[in-house]
C-alpha cells in the first residue's frame, strides 16, 4: 500500500457499459475493497444479481523480482465472479492473478467492472474515427445525395410518358427522400441504442453512396451487355448488387457495433454468400440455369452497339449444340417422370 504517492489513487474501479463507456468509477484508496449490494461495502452495486457481500479484491504488493498479486475472492454469492471473461470464481473461492500490467475485467452480477492499477500501461490515444468525423462533414454526403436524386429524376423521366412526367417526378423525389429518411432513421435508432450516438450523418452517407452504386449497377452492366453482346453480364449482375448491399449493411453495422469490426465483416460476408447461393439455386429451380435472364433483354439506342453482327447462316448453324442439351434434359426428366408417379408441375 505504501507505494501510492499522495493524490494518486491506489487503483481505479470502473463500471463499464458494453460499448466501452464508463458508467461509474470508484477511486480505491486502499485494499482490500469489498463489493456488494449492502451499504457497508466500499463499492455498492444495486443490481439484484449481486449478493449483499459479493466479493473482495485485494492487491498484494510484489517485490523487485515478483509482480504484485491480485486476489479476487467471491463471498456468499450464488453467481460468483467471472474473471477476465473466462474463469468463474464460485462463492467462497478465491482466484489469485499475477499482475501482468493489464487491466482486470470482472463481472459481478450484471455489472462489468474494470480494475486499473497505477502501474498499468496506457494505450496510445486513438484518433477520432471516421464515424464520428462524418457527423460533422455534410458537404460530400450532400453532393452524393444530389447525384442520387438526379439519377432518380433521370430514370423517372425515361420511364414516364411526357404528359404525366411532372407528377411522377414529384412522387419519385418524395418517395426517395422519405425512404432514405426512414432507412437512415432506423439505423440511427439502432446506433443510439448501442452506442449512445445516432451517427445519423454516417448512416446517410452510407445510404447515399450505396444508392448511387446500385443505381449505376442498374445501368452499366445492361449497357455493356448491349454494347458488346455479353449476355452473361446481366445474367449475373445480381452478384454485384448483392455485394453492394452487403457492403452497405456492413458500414451501417459498423456504426452500431464499432468495437466488433470482424464480427460485422463476417455477418456481411455470410449474408452475401448465402444470398448469392440462394439466388443461384432458385434460378436453377426456376429455369434450369444459374443465371437470371433467359436472354439479354436490354436494348439501348443503336449507336451504342459495339459488337459486330454475324450472318444469319452462322447464327442458325450455331443453334446446333442446343439439340444435345435439350435431348438430354427431355430424357432425364421424362425418365424420372415414369418412375415416380410424381406430379412435377411448377
Amino acid at each position, binding site marked *: 500500500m505504501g507505494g501510492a504517492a499522495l493524490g494518486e489513487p491506489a487503483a481505479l474501479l470502473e463500471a463499464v457499459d458494453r460499448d466501452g463507456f464508463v458508467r461509474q468509477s470508484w477511486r480505491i484508496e486502499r485494499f482490500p475493497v469489498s463489493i456488494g449490494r449492502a451499504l457497508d461495502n466500499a463499492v455498492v452495486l444495486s443490481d439484484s444479481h449481486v449478493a449483499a457481500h459479493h466479493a473482495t479484491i485485494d492487491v498484494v504488493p510484489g517485490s523487485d523480482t515478483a509482480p504484485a498479486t491480485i486476489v479476487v475472492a467471491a463471498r456468499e454469492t450464488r453467481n460468483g465472479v467471472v474473471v477476465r471473461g473466462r474463469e468463474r470464481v464460485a462463492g467462497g473461492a478465491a482466484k489469485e492473478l499475477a499482475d501482468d500490467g493489464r487491466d482486470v475485467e470482472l463481472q459481478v452480477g450484471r455489472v462489468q467492472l474494470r480494475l486499473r492499477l497505477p502501474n498499468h500501461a496506457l494505450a496510445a490515444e486513438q484518433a477520432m474515427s471516421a464515424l464520428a468525423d462524418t457527423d460533422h462533414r455534410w458537404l460530400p454526403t450532400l453532393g452524393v445525395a444530389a447525384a442520387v436524386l438526379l439519377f432518380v429524376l433521370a430514370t423517372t423521366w425515361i420511364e414516364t410518358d411526357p404528359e404525366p412526367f411532372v407528377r411522377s417526378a414529384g412522387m419519385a423525389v418524395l418517395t426517395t427522400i422519405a425512404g432514405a429518411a426512414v432507412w437512415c432513421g432506423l439505423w440511427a435508432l439502432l446506433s443510439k441504442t448501442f452506442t449512445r450516438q445516432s451517427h445519423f450523418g454516417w448512416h446517410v452517407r452510407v445510404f447515399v453512396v450505396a444508392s448511387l452504386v446500385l443505381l449505376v449497377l442498374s445501368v452499366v452492366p445492361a449497357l455493356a451487355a448491349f454494347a458488346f453482346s455479353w449476355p452473361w453480364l446481366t445474367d449475373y449482375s445480381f452478384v454485384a448488387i448483392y455485394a453492394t448491399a452487403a457492403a452497405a449493411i456492413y458500414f451501417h453495422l459498423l456504426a452500431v457495433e464499432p468495437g466488433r469490426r470482424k464480427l460485422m465483416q463476417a455477418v456481411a460476408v455470410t449474408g452475401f454468400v448465402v444470398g448469392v447461393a440462394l439466388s443461384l439455386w432458385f434460378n436453377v429451380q426456376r429455369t434450369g440455369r444459374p443465371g437470371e435472364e433467359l436472354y439479354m433483354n436490354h436494348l439501348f439506342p443503336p449507336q451504342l452497339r459495339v459488337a459486330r453482327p454475324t450472318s444469319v447462316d452462322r447464327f442458325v448453324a450455331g443453334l446446333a449444340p442446343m439439340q444435345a442439351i435439350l435431348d438430354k434434359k*427431355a430424357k432425364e426428366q421424362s425418365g424420372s417422370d415414369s418412375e415416380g408417379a410424381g406430379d412435377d408441375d411448377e
Partner: protein
Amino acid sequence: MRPRIRRWEALTALALVASSPAFAQPRPAAAPPPEVAASAAAAPSAPVSLSARKVYEQARSQLVQIRTVLKGRASQTSVGSGFFVSAQGHILTNFHVVSEAALKPEQHDLVYVTADGREAPLVILQLDVLHDLALLRAGDAAPSGAGRRFDALAFRSATEPLAQGERIYSLGNPLDVGFAVTQGTYNGLVKRSFYPQIFFGGALSAGMSGGPALDEEGHVVGVNVARRIDGEQVSFLVPAEFASALLARGKDAAPIVGSAYPIVDEQLLKHQTLLTDRFIQQGWKEATHPRYRVPVPPDVFMRCWGTSTVSNNGGLDFERSDCVMDTRIFVGEFTTGTISLRHESYDGTKLGALRFAQRYAASFRNESFVRLSSQHQTKPRCEEDYIERDGLPLRAVVCMRAYKKLPQLYDVAVLVATLDQSRNGVQGRFDAQGVSFANAQRLAQHYLEAYRWVAPH
C-alpha cells in the same frame, strides 16, 4: 405493352369430359378444351324433318357411344360417339375421343354402348392423329370376322361431291343425354385450313365427337369433330375420305398395345415435315411496313389480325399484327403442330431516343417461352446474337424446348428486334410447335432472312 387480342375463341373438340351431371361445368383439367356444356345444350336446331327420322332409324343400330372408363372404377372420364363401318365390327371415331385410353392404357379402358343398351369393350387398331380419327374394333367381334356380323354404315362415294347447301345429318350422343340427330347444311370445305375439313352449318355438342354425318341416303360424308364456341352452328367434320382411308389401312391391323405416344410422335414428325415445307414454300407478303420487309405469311393456311394503338400521353404508338393457324394437332393433354407469327411496329418520335429505347427494351423483355407444363416439355434454352441482313442490324434470340414424351420434336421461338433507328423499330416473334430440330433451324433461318430494308440505305 402487348394487348392480348382474341378475336375468336379456339375450336372446341367435342368429346364430353365433364363428370356427372352433364350440364355441370366440365372438369377444368380434362383433355379437350372444356368450355362446352351449357351453351351448347341451349343452341337452337332446326326442326327434325321426315328425312331426318328416316336417316336416324336407318343408322340407329350402327351408332355407338364410346366411353373411356377408369380402370378398376366404374366411372367414365370422357364420352364421345362412333359408328360401325364394317360387318366385322370396325368402329370409327375421333382420336380425341379415345386419346386417354390410347396414351395412358394402363389407367383407362374403352367400351362402347349401342342405342339399345348393349355394352362391350373396344380395342384400338389404328390412329390418324393429324385428321383426328381412330379406328377401333368391337371386343365382342371375332378377329377373323367369322363371328357375329354387325350392321355398318357405308361411305358416300368420292365421285359424288356434295353441293353447298345440301342437307346433311349429324348423329351422336350429345352431352351423354341420349342418341340424337341434328340437321344442318354442307357448306364446302373450311377456308385456310391446313388439312381439309367440312364446314357443317349445324349444331354440334360435346359428346357428339366421332359420330357420323350422313347425307339424305344415309351415307357417311364426314365425322363430327369440332365447333366454334364463339359462333352459332359453325361446326366441323372430318371428310369421309380420310375415314375410309383409315379403315382400308387399318382394318386388319393388330390392336395397339401399350401407349400410343410412339405412333403419335411418328405422325407428328410427318406433319411437321409437310408444315415446314408448305410454310417455307409459300414465301412472304410484300409491303408489310414502309421501311422494312417484315415477315408476314400469305393467307393460305394462316390468318392475320392487326391492331393499332396510339398513346394518349404523348408516349409510344404501335401497330401490331398477329398471324395464326386454325389447325392444331390434338395430342391428349395439349395441342401442337402449329405456326404463329407476330410483329409490332413502334413509333417513338414523340419520345426521343432514350425513352424510346426503354420502352422498346421493355417490350423485348415481355416475352414468355413457357407454353406447356414441365411434365410435357423441358425448360427453354436460348441462343442470341446480333445479325445483319444486307446492312440492317437485328438482335435475334432463338429459344427452344423439347417435348418429353415426343422424342425429336421441339417448340422453337424466334425473337427479333430491328436496331437501325433510335426512335423507331419493329419487333417480331415467330413460333413453331412440334417441329424437328433441323426444321426448327430451317424455319428460324427462313424467318430471319425475311427481314430487310425495303429500299437500300
